[in-house]
């Protein structure tokens, strides 16, 4: 692995860890706003205020930095989603989850999309390690949604024959696709519509 510090367990001094965190934070922000492809290491140097030698001490190139950003963003989003979805067991609860995501995205007119989804659409054909890390993160996120749907099924709100994993994946795609449509339209409406349609279908399964 190439991100020396975090991956092979080489210990960082407190100061080294702080520098590394500063670089990752600046890179995360830049890649979120202007995209991975458009973000250069020089941009990251300028935004983080660290020296070139410090940056190369922690990361041997852009790929390594992108992987660190994937880990960082993934950790943040999974923490948020575990909290938001971990105990949801009703359609109403699922709608509250939807409301929070739409509301948050509306604050920026949907301009930047989902931090994890944007990374996924940009890095998947560039770097196998980043792609695998993203694949694991999305599997975990879909697992949280599947957990909710399974609890709905256990409570009788979904029929026993409903395919939970397939629905969870379909819902995730509706969410991610919705983010992407909103990003292009600079309007959160298509995202809200897409999730609402998916949720309405899931809800309709209960009264068939």
């Amino acid at each position, binding site marked *: 692995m190439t991100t020396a510090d975090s991956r092979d367990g080489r210990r960082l001094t407190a100061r080294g860890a702080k520098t590394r965190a500063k670089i990752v934070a600046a890179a995360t922000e830049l890649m979120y706003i202007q995209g991975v492809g458009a973000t250069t290491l020089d941009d990251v140097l300028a935004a983080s205020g660290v020296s070139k030698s410090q940056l190369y001490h922690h990361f041997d190139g852009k790929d390594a930095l992108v992987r660190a950003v994937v880990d960082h963003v993934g950790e943040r989003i999974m923490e948020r989603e575990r909290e938001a979805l971990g105990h949801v067991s009703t359609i109403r609860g699922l709608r509250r989850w939807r409301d929070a995501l739409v509301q948050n995205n509306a604050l920026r007119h949907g301009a930047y999309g989902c931090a994890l989804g944007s990374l996924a659409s940009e890095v998947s054909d560039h770097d196998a390690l980043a792609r695998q890390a993203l694949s694991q993160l999305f599997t975990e996120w879909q697992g949280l949604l599947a957990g909710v749907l399974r609890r709905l099924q256990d409570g009788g709100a979904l029929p026993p024959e409903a395919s939970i994993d397939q629905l969870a994946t379909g819902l995730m*795609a509706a969410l991610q696709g919705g983010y992407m449509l909103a990003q292009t339209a600079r309007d959160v409406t298509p995202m809200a519509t897409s999730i609402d349609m998916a949720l309405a279908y899931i809800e309709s399964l209960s009264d068939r």
Partner: protein
Amino acid sequence: MRTHFAEVLARESACLAGVTDGAKLAGWRRRVVEELMTPLSPYVLAMRQTGDVPDRADFLDRWRELIAETVDRLAQSGTTGDTRFSSGQTRRADVDAQKTAVLILAALHGGSTLSQIAEDPWPLNAALDLALAPFAATEDNCPARAGTSSPIGNMNP
């Protein structure tokens, strides 16, 4: 960038115009999935979140409109629905063509991203199964049968 958009719109316009029933919709869906799973196909390039935003927005609006027309046509003709969960009554009358088209386009977009990172068409097919459920254009979403040929033939021009 413009050329991918134009290429996709030309193909979609031709193919969607011929979609008059559930089986043909399933044929359309199979072809789009194949395109989206082909590296560097015009569809894959057109889906990228790069390039000029107004051009992309225009492209997506037009594609959504083509899908909405098709959804509307199918709903009007009373295309029979999904029988797997059916209890007899159809839900065709409830279909909102514009909103359904937004979901289908989102499913293509989000599903292809998930499929690319998983290197597997399964997520894209799961997304389309959900989005196309009112029209029974579902596939047996099973990797082993992904290559099954379409009974209605190849819809490529």
